[in-house]
C-alpha cells in the first residue's frame, strides 16, 4: 500500500505543478500506478533510503534520487540504484511467496490478517489526530 499511496500523491503533486521523485523498493507497483520519476532500490521492503546503519549508502541513495529529480527527461523515468542488498539474491524468493508456505502457516496467517483488519477498522472509523 505504501508504494501505491506515494505514487498517487506524486501524481497529484505533479498535476499541480510540483515536481517529485519517489524512492521505493517495489518497482512493479510504482510503475503500474505510473509516476514521473522513481529511484528504485532493489532491496527488501523497508529500505527505500539505503542500508540500515550505513550513512554512505543512505547519502548515495538520496543523491541518486536528487539526480533523478533534476535530470529525468520524461515521465516514467526509473533509475535503479547500483547498490546490491546481498551477493546472493535468494532473499527475493521469500516475500509473500505462497509456494514457500505450508498449509498450517497459511491458515495462521489468514487468522492473523483478519484480526489485524478488525483492529485497523476500529481506528479508521474513529480516527485519532496524529499531529
Amino acid at each position, binding site marked *: 500500500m505504501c508504494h501505491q*499511496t506515494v505514487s498517487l500523491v506524486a501524481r497529484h*503533486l505533479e498535476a*499541480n505543478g510540483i515536481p517529485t521523485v519517489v524512492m521505493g523498493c517495489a518497482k512493479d507497483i510504482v510503475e503500474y500506478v505510473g509516476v514521473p520519476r522513481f529511484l528504485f532500490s532493489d532491496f527488501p521492503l523497508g529500505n527505500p533510503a539505503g542500508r*540500515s546503519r550505513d550513512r554512505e549508502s543512505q547519502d548515495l541513495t538520496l543523491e541518486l534520487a536528487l539526480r533523478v529529480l533534476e535530470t529525468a527527461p520524461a515521465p516514467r523515468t526509473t533509475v535503479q540504484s547500483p547498490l546490491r542488498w546481498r551477493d546472493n539474491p535468494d532473499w527475493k524468493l521469500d516475500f509473500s511467496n505462497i509456494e514457500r508456505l505450508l498449509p498450517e502457516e497459511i491458515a495462521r496467517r489468514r487468522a492473523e490478517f483478519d484480526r489485524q483488519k478488525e483492529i485497523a477498522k476500529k481506528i479508521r472509523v474513529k480516527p485519532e489526530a496524529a499531529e
Partner: protein
Amino acid sequence: MSESDEGFGFAPDHDAPIPYLLRIRDYYQTLGYGAPYRWAHYAEVPFAPVAKPLAESRIVLVTTAAPYQPDKGDQGPGAAYNAAAKFYTVYSGDSTAEHDLRIAHVGYDRAHTTAEDSDSWFPLPALRRAATAGRLGGVAPRFHGAPTNRSHRTTLDTDCPELLRRIREDKADAAILVAV
C-alpha cells in the same frame, strides 16, 4: 547446463525485482480472499518540469512511516504487523526536530529487514546533510505523513489534496516521496 548458462555471466532467473503484484495476488487468493485487489493504474503520467536548480530549491519530504505511539503495542525492530499503530489522517512534523518514526504498521520485509534504523526509510537526516552541503536550497519547514489506505477514494479525494495544501503552504519547490 543449457547453452545460455555457458560462461556468459547471466544472473539467476530470480535475481530480478520482486514481482509484488503477482506475489500479493496469489498470496491473498490462496489465503481465501476472493477477488484480487484492484491496484491504481494509469496510462497517462503527469510531469512537472523542475523550474530551478536544486541548490536554489526548497525540498519537502513525504513519508508513509508513522510516529511511534508507546501505548499501541510493539513497534520495535522485528515487530509483527501492528495495525493498531496505523494512522488515517495526514500528519506533519517539524523538519528541524528529531523524530521517532516506525514502520510496524506496514508490510515491510520482516524476514530480511531489521527495521532498526529509521534513516533507512526516513531520509530526513540525509536531506539535512544535503542542504548543509549546499546541494539543496533548503529543507521545507515540515515533513508530511501520508496514510496508507486501501481505499483509493480516501487517498485521492482526501489525503492527496491535503498533502498538496500543506506543501504549498510550506512553499516547497519539489517533493521527495518515500514508500516503506
